[in-house]
């Protein structure tokens, strides 16, 4: 932020503005989030823009480089394919803490504009056998290191980035659903119907790291909130959990942070001390979402009942 007042350094300032205005102008052109106010008083016309981190900055109107939604989308597509250099994201889900609050699902559905019946993350009621104790299991995409879904894509629409996140480019996806069949975890879903949105919402530049706007006839799935990670924030589900179920972090740093308590712990120690495991590891998919067993539950298991009092 300091560079904007530094009038001596033209080039660096321009660089800063470029990155800031990309977002600001994108918002003007796209959803109309920002109103550009021309200041008639000064020598040069000043324009207020919203920077990428949500601050308002003033720039000369002549230096303002309006970026079309198409250019914003192109930038999104390019950076979305590369990912965050040097990172390797990992999630740990503590099953002993999940009480089926479903706040993660609500936050996820809101961010990715999904219908209530669609899930990028779903909390399942599990019972392995008649005598074993039931538990709740939130199930996102496991962002496998050996992803079967990516291997079968015939059009290079789904890919694995260097930071470990498996994404889908809905602009490329042809809706063949090979990936849905290939995924052993049923993490992917198909947009059968036209998503409900206004014409204006539909014309927003497509964000590959958010899968928004959703497109009919394409596949969508959990993205580890790649757009949030880019700005150094925890994923939507992780930060909205009220029960401290989720840990998220960079495996290269060997640290994961709890989204509820903000407590940071060593990833390897957490997994070792609590017998962490991955789901269906015998398939060789190398999932990057780890589970801690539902041992020493914080609160007793309460089954969900439907309106008729039947267990679901």
């Amino acid at each position, binding site marked *: 932020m300091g560079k904007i007042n530094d009038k001596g350094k033209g080039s660096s300032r321009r660089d800063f503005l470029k990155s800031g205005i990309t977002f600001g102008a994108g918002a003007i052109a796209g959803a109309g989030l920002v109103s550009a106010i021309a200041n008639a008083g000064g020598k040069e016309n000043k324009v207020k823009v919203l920077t990428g981190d949500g601050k308002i900055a003033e720039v000369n109107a002549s230096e303002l480089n309006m970026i079309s939604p198409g250019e914003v989308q192109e930038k999104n597509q390019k950076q979305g394919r590369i990912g965050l250099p040097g990172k390797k994201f990992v999630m740990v889900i503590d099953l002993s803490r999940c009480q089926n609050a479903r706040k993660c699902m609500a936050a996820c559905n809101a961010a990715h504009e999904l219908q209530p019946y669609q899930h990028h993350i779903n909390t399942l009621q599990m019972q392995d056998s008649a005598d074993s104790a039931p538990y709740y299991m939130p199930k996102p995409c496991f962002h496998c290191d050996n992803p079967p879904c*990516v*291997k079968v894509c015939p059009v290079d629409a789904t890919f*694995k980035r260097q930071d470990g996140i498996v994404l889908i480019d809905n602009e490329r996806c042809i809706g063949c659903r090979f990936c849905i069949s290939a995924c052993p975890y049923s993490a992917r879903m198909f947009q059968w119907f036209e998503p409900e949105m206004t014409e204006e919402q539909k014309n927003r530049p497509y964000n590959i790291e958010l899968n928004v706007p959703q497109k009919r006839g394409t596949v969508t799935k959990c993205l580890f909130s790649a757009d949030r990670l880019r700005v*150094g924030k925890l994923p939507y589900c992780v930060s909205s959990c*009220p029960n401290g179920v989720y840990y998220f972090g960079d495996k*290269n740093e060997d*640290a994961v942070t709890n989204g*509820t308590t903000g407590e*940071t712990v060593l990833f390897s120690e957490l997994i070792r001390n609590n017998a962490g495991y991955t789901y269906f590891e015998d398939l060789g998919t190398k999932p990057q979402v780890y589970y801690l067993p539902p041992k020493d539950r914080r*609160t007793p298991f309460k089954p969900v009942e439907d309106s008729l009092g039947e267990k679901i």
Partner: protein
Amino acid sequence: MRICGNSIIIMLLLACSLDVLAFEPWNVPGPEGGRKNPLKADKNVIENGRIFFMNTCKACHGEQGLGNGVIKAADMTTAKFQSQTDGELFYKITTGRGQMPSFKAMNSNDLWQVIIFIRTLAGGAKQVLKKNAMLNLIIDVNKPEKQVTGVVYFMDEAGQKQPLEKIKVGFYVQRMFGLLPVGSKYTNDKGYVRLDFPSGIIGDTIGNLNLVAKLEDAEYKSADALATVKWGLPNTGLKKAERTLWATNKLAPVWLILSFTLTLLVIFGVIIYVLLQVRKIHRLGKIV
């Protein structure tokens, strides 16, 4: 119309009964309410209770126990709430009602500790005027031992540094989403605190770590001190993208590119060869 009127009355009755249910006094059986807290309040118990509260209760009851978390919950700061005995609170925590889950499965020692912490919330968040204190870090980079020393002091009226004793200093390492604790110690009578930095913490590509020290005391304002030290293991995860079967076209495995190209060449080669032969036959026919 009559049916409609009836249903409205029924709905009103239902609404009333629900309200009554919500405000029905929560009676605790006599012997349960009379249980005594086996623990006595001290700095350690309150700190443990606070950690438990932040992990388990904060989400609903709010950071200051005002009942303003993600769902509406009991306000723990009111005189009415605080008038309950420890035994009554213990019973309610272990039994649960409505939105309040039962914490029967938890360690009872933790629950008694959190009850002691809840007592400190009485009267709401008090505006405590904290005193100023300074925290400085001394690191000798030339020494082979990974040792960090913190000095905690305050400036007296004469402008002299006065050391502070028994002040907790927490040491952390900066990670992408938070601070990883590496140890905490209390200052000695000279205001010094010394920590042997643990080995095996991963830093950046050359092993640099951002060390954060925090003054954590109820009486003094929190103060941070930062330092960058080369005590970490180099981050070896920063590899270049490898050639894999699930990578994009550019990073496809060499064997795949080779076999695919070879297959294409063979197939088209055969087709071209056949076409050439057909042309040859055609020409031969013309000559005859």
